[in-house]
């Protein structure tokens, strides 16, 4: 035992540990700055958030040390019980939890507040690793895939009930793990296609999308067939239906339908006729193309339903603001607009530490938590933001490397879970502060203020560091 423990520190990946220490230090400095004004000059004032964060950091470091001491096999054996416990805890918090900021996601025991959803990420990663590393588990097998999906989305679903949309979305990042472990490429392609279609549906009129989809189906079909004759038949149909439509619009509808819409209608109409003709001739692919077309059109309409009936008003607005459909600098676009001003005002080298004027809590709400990146942008400028992004990229790439060098699937899969969760937080948090993704309230790992999230990220990371340190034990 003793020799193995020594082994742990000898095999520790110090690069990741140092990156971790650098990030939490930068974090607490920026939290202090976000709150700084002439009355709050003492860094170690424990009534301030920076002071409190120092306490959280101290606790996190002790926690990290403990995690390094625990035997690495513990996680493999206890993944399932831990998963059951955390699911029960998530359900319990719905019943006896305390509502803070509109989400019932906190246990309050005396002065301590704990958010179980933060820790659920860690346990879900362990559980997923344990399941996927089992014998004869293949993601090409539909049953195995469904079980993996349940493991990931069961906690997500319970968290959605709190409701905490941000934490729920984090679980989607674990799809990256599934991809690495052999999720069929076609599913990934479909996922990406649906995402694109989702965004397009919100941006354009449904009629136009349906017409374009039909047109697209026609094009694909045409390229698959590669016959000149068919092309001319298509053109003929197009011209004839165009003339007929033009006449009908002129005579019966008093030109009520405008030129672009008319064109689209004619194109889709002629494509439809063409496809039906081809169908009569029993040409291959046609069934497949039509099925995909029908699916895509169906999806377009269900997106509309989902967007307007399931998402809440403020969520709709945030998406609309990012897509540029709505501009509302004092409403839901307020945070993002303020955040962009703050970051933009930093310029190349920033205004200097503690010298920010826009990032004090009067302009950007959630300054020290979700929008902490603004403080970095304003006070440290482009140099600071780039360095911070590079720090995260180094950390993430290093995690990727470590995951790949694991000898057991369990450690590798867990490593990928850690990577995916960090990647998601990094992308969404920084993306929202610079207006590239909708405002989803999730913290920037190690930088944002908050004990629960800091501890959860620390546990997430150090379990992996521990697994990595003992990789040579598993042979």
């Amino acid at each position, binding site marked *: 035992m003793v020799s193995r423990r020594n082994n742990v520190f000898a095999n520790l990946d110090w690069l990741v540990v140092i990156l971790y220490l650098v990030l939490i230090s930068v974090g607490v400095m920026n939290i202090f700055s976000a709150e700084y004004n002439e009355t709050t000059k003492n860094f170690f004032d424990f009534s301030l958030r920076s002071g409190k964060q120092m306490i959280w950091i101290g606790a996190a470091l002790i926690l990290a040390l403990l995690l390094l001491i625990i035997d690495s096999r513990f996680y493999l054996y206890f993944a399932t019980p831990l998963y059951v416990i955390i699911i029960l805890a998530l359900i319990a918090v719905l019943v006896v939890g305390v509502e803070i900021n509109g989400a019932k996601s906190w246990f309050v025991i005396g002065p301590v507040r704990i958010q179980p959803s933060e820790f659920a990420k860690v346990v879900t990663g362990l559980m997923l690793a344990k399941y996927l590393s089992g014998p004869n588990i293949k993601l090409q097998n539909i049953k195995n895939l469904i079980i993996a999906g349940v493991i990931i989305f069961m906690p997500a679903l319970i968290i959605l009930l709190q409701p905490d949309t941000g934490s729920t979305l984090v679980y989607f990042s674990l799809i990256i793990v599934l991809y690495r472990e052999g999720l069929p490429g076609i599913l990934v392609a479909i996922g990406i296609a649906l995402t694109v279609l989702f965004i397009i549906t919100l941006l354009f009129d449904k009629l136009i999308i349906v017409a374009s989809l039909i047109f697209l189906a026609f094009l694909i079909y045409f390229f698959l067939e590669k016959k000149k004759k068919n092309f001319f038949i298509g053109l003929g149909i197009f011209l004839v239906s165009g003339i007929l439509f033009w006449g009908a619009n002129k005579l019966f509808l008093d030109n009520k339908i405008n030129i672009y819409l008319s064109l689209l209608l004619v194109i889709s109409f002629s494509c439809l006729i063409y496809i039906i003709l081809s169908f009569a001739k029993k040409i291959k692919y046609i069934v497949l193309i039509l099925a995909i077309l029908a699916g895509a059109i169906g999806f377009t309409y269900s997106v509309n339903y989902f967007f307007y009936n399931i998402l809440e008003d403020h969520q709709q607005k945030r998406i609309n603001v990012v897509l540029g459909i709505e501009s509302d600098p004092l409403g839901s676009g307020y945070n993002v607009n303020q955040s962009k001003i703050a970051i*933009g*005002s930093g310029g190349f080298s920033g205004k200097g530490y503690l010298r920010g004027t826009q990032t004090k809590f009067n302009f950007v709400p959630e300054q020290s938590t979700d929008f902490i990146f603004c403080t970095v942008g304003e006070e440290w400028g*482009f140099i600071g933001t780039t360095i911070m992004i*590079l720090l995260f990229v180094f950390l993430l790439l290093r995690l990727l490397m470590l995951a790949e060098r694991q000898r057991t699937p369990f450690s590798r899969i867990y490593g990928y879970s850690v990577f995916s969760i960090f990647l998601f937080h990094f992308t969404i948090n920084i993306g929202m502060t610079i207006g590239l993704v909708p405002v989803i309230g999730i913290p920037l790992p190690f930088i944002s203020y908050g004990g629960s999230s800091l501890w959860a990220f620390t546990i997430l990371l150090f379990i992996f560091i521990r697994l990595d340190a003992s990789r040579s034990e598993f042979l």
Partner: protein
Amino acid sequence: MKNQFENRKLAIGGVLILLALIFIAKLFYLQIINTSYRLSAENNVIRYVPQFPARGLIFDRNGKLVVHNEAAYDLMVIPSQLSEFDTLDLCDILTIEKEDFLISLKTARAYSPYRPSTIIKQINPETYAKLQEKMYRFPGFYVHTRTLRKYSYNIASHLLGYVGEVSEKDIKKDPYYKLGDYIGKSGIEKSYETELRGKKGVKMYLVDVHNRIKGPYQSGRHDSDPIVGSNLTATFDADLQTYGEQLMQNKVGSIVAIEPATGEILSLVSAPSYKPSLLVGRIRSKNYLALARDTLKPLFNRALMASYPPGSTFKTINGLIGLQERTLYPSTTYGCTMGYHSRGLTVGCHSHRSPLNLPSAVQISCNAYFCNVFRNILDSGKYTDIHESFDSWRNYLISFGFGQKISLDLPNELKGFVPKSSYYDRYYGKKGWSSLTVISLAIGQGELGITPIQLANMTAAIANRGHYFSPHIMKEIAGGNDNKEMFIKKHNTAIDSINFIPIISGMEMAVNGQPGSGSTARIAKIDSIIVCGKTGTAQNPHGEDHSIFIAFAPKDNPKIAIAVFVENGGFGARYAAPIASLMIEKYLKGKTKRKWIEDYILKTDLIHGEQKK
């Protein structure tokens, strides 16, 4: 152990690198290329200045401007932007005490060092001009322009309502409002708040360390312009309203005049009243407190909120119900021997000729006649018991708008009270009462609570021979009225049009009868206009009877229906009838000829009367 999916790590790593590059590119754009986000090095700040739109103007029915706006200036401070300044100098300019100033500065700092707080509200334009010149000496301070209400006719406070600062509750209800904003608190200002207020805008300025505005931030790209509030044309007549308020001076009571053909309120007076200008600007809170403490309750809108027994004016409606129920005919006669006597109960009456038919009974206001009418309605045998007949009688009253809020757009109106049969059951038991128990309802006494606006509405319904339009104060609003149908909806009473003929002819005779014929309201007679009216005298526990009068004119194609209440004014003919008559004359002819009646009313002081003796 090579994994067949290992090369997928390249795709994953590639996505990470791509994301990082996109972020860096976007940050490069935000922080370096797009200079508009950058503020210069000397700690420049963006100042958000909300742009308050001018509130909509209010005109009277003839297009006379009644309410408009004047500019006022609030001195704001952002404590974190303060630097050394000459406190005494600033206090001198503002003519305030240094101590008070320091206290408000402390409060502002406690509220938030970064958010603007108001230090001094509503600085007048002269002081503002002085302050503006020296503003550069006071970094951290700036001036907010907003508008205050100004009244060209200092009248109609109860109709117009007033504007005041939003309460916590208002802010919670509608996030449009921010602390310190203004909102309509009563009257038209409240009912049409959303239309009148317009829409706030915001301007972002770059401000340097010397508190000088350097110019719009990003050339105003993020600014939004305020949208001016919609102008409103009210239904009241400013001249008539002014006249009504003069007539009601030194009296307690109210006048409500309605145009029968539309339901438009021509005038609504609640006395004692106050000048609307008292509740504007810095003097508002002081004056409000004084008005709220006044024992005569000038803030209380009697026209909408005071409920009285309607007295003999109610005989008209009992007559109508009798006719409709076929228990009374125009030619029905009853005798009167100084009152109505039944089973040891007497309802007294004054001495007059007897017997009378229906029109004469209205003209002379015979109590005995209407006691008979009322008992015959309730005991007609058409209904199984008193409960059914009483509730049927009550339904007629409801069809005239009693017992409910009837105005469309005047806030805080009360419903009044019309008892149900169950109400008497509670007092007397199910079988413990009869038509005789409730006989005082025959002459408009007893358990009735009628507001002046309801009585005016009843008069309009009589003038229209059977229907009314809900009384309202808004004639036209720029941008259109959302519930237009409500304003033009005809409410039919449960009385057939033909039954109004004998009642109206009685009301005509009450005013226009020959001397000596017993007409109760000859004082209301106007040459060349046929006024139809009915007096009322309501007994009440608070002293002398209330003087009440309802009237409409002209008889054919009526233009005005009016109800007047003068509390403790004695007989209806004593004060209420001449006031109503003068109001009708003023409205229909534009001026009044009968100077002696006018003088008599203007000189009457029912409030201070006792002290004057």
